[in-house]
């Protein structure tokens, strides 16, 4: 097909833009973004919070898990505009400002619960969310596997991650 190459390249994206405001790690942020921007890309590209990893972009791997109004959810299956007005927490908020690790992170370190580390932010956010819920934790192998079932790890074989969840429960006085 003959197509002229002279057509002007548009200087603007055809995407409709929308104003979004939310609280991210305790800070109010406002941006004008494409309506099709995923929350994961909003965090990484607009806010430069690259601790939230992107694996599969269809909700299977769990790498992009963040807390939406205190509950774990997939940032790749949420549009930034859907999160308008939400309170978002990412892995960057988990360790203390002085660099002291959160007990869940400390437990991953002690138990060698990570190798390449790609899945770790999503794992940690999912586990932190469960630990923040009231009630007794199910720390049987089966219970911990259920907790981790929405997060894929291709390095560890999971055994050290299961140990890390138990260790985190000890560190947090929840064992």
């Amino acid at each position, binding site marked *: 097909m003959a197509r002229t190459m002279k057509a002007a390249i548009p200087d603007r994206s055809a995407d409709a833009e929308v104003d979004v405001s939310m609280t991210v790690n305790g800070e109010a942020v406002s941006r004008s973004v494409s309506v099709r921007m995923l929350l994961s890309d909003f965090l990484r590209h607009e806010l430069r919070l690259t601790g939230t990893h992107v694996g599969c972009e269809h909700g299977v791997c*769990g790498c992009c898990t963040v807390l939406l109004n205190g509950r774990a959810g997939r940032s790749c299956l949420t549009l930034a505009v859907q999160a308008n007005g939400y309170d978002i927490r990412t892995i960057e908020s988990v360790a203390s400002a002085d660099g002291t690790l959160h007990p869940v992170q400390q437990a991953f370190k002690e138990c060698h619960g990570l190798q390449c580390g790609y899945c770790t932010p999503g794992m940690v956010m999912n586990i932190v969310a469960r630990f923040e819920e009231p009630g007794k934790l199910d720390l049987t192998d089966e219970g911990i596997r259920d907790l981790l079932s929405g997060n894929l790890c291709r390095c560890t074989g999971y055994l050290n991650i299961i140990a890390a969840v138990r260790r985190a429960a000890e560190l947090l006085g929840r064992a």
Partner: protein
Amino acid sequence: MKPSLFGYQAPASIEEAISILAGDPDAVVLAGGQTLLPAMNFRAANPSTLVDIQHVADLRGIEVGTEIIIVKAMTRHREFELDAAVARVNPLVAEVMQHVAHVPIRNRGTVVGSLCHADPSAEMPMLLVLLGGSVIAQGPSGRREIAAEDFFQSFLTTARERDEIITEARFPVLPKGAGWAFDEVTRRHGDYAIAGVGCVLSLDDRGRASRVQLAACGIADTPVRLKEAENILTGTTLGASDLDAAVAASGAAVTQPDEIHVSHTYRRRALGTLIRRIVTMAAQRATQMETA
């Protein structure tokens, strides 16, 4: 991947949402997005406009009545799963919900969204069919109630008109003293079911089944009530030969063809194993309810 271009509307009322749908044949309702957004990221779904209904106050919440539990369109799976009032009148809900994906997905995905998606291997459509529930569809010409068995028409196809919103689902409570159970066979926990079976049954004072409801997901192009098996089991003591007869009568309900991981024969055998397991478990619970 990223979704293709679309418009976005966030109406504040049901009427406003319906008028957007009525004016744009390719507009799609966005609730929790846990199925729609992956489909859009794959570009398998390309809606012209997303109608985000999360800000419609009338579409939130759960109302537990004496006979019916009303689940509004924006109710997340996890809310339905953890609701103490729901658990009191229908403990089957929480048992089924353990099998729906994973907690982070259940935190965002909605019950009604799952019903409207109508995946025949999903658990929520089966639960509505098993219980004999219904949905309320609201469109430009008003509201109508659609029974579960009429709502699910085929694979990913429901009786909802494209300018209608399913505003709520109506799940009946369990009869007093009834036993219940659900289980499924999957390759990995949280996956869609290869086969899943749910049961609600009541026993009379001689230990005979006075009422049996049995349904399956994963075996056909819609969730299925196993009516022949229900009729065979009703009036029996649910012994081994009764279960054999019920299983034999249910094989023909499996219409899914061979798939790469699952042969038709395997699915039939999984269904049979589940029917035996689930009916027995429901009967045990009904007995416990009587003695409690």
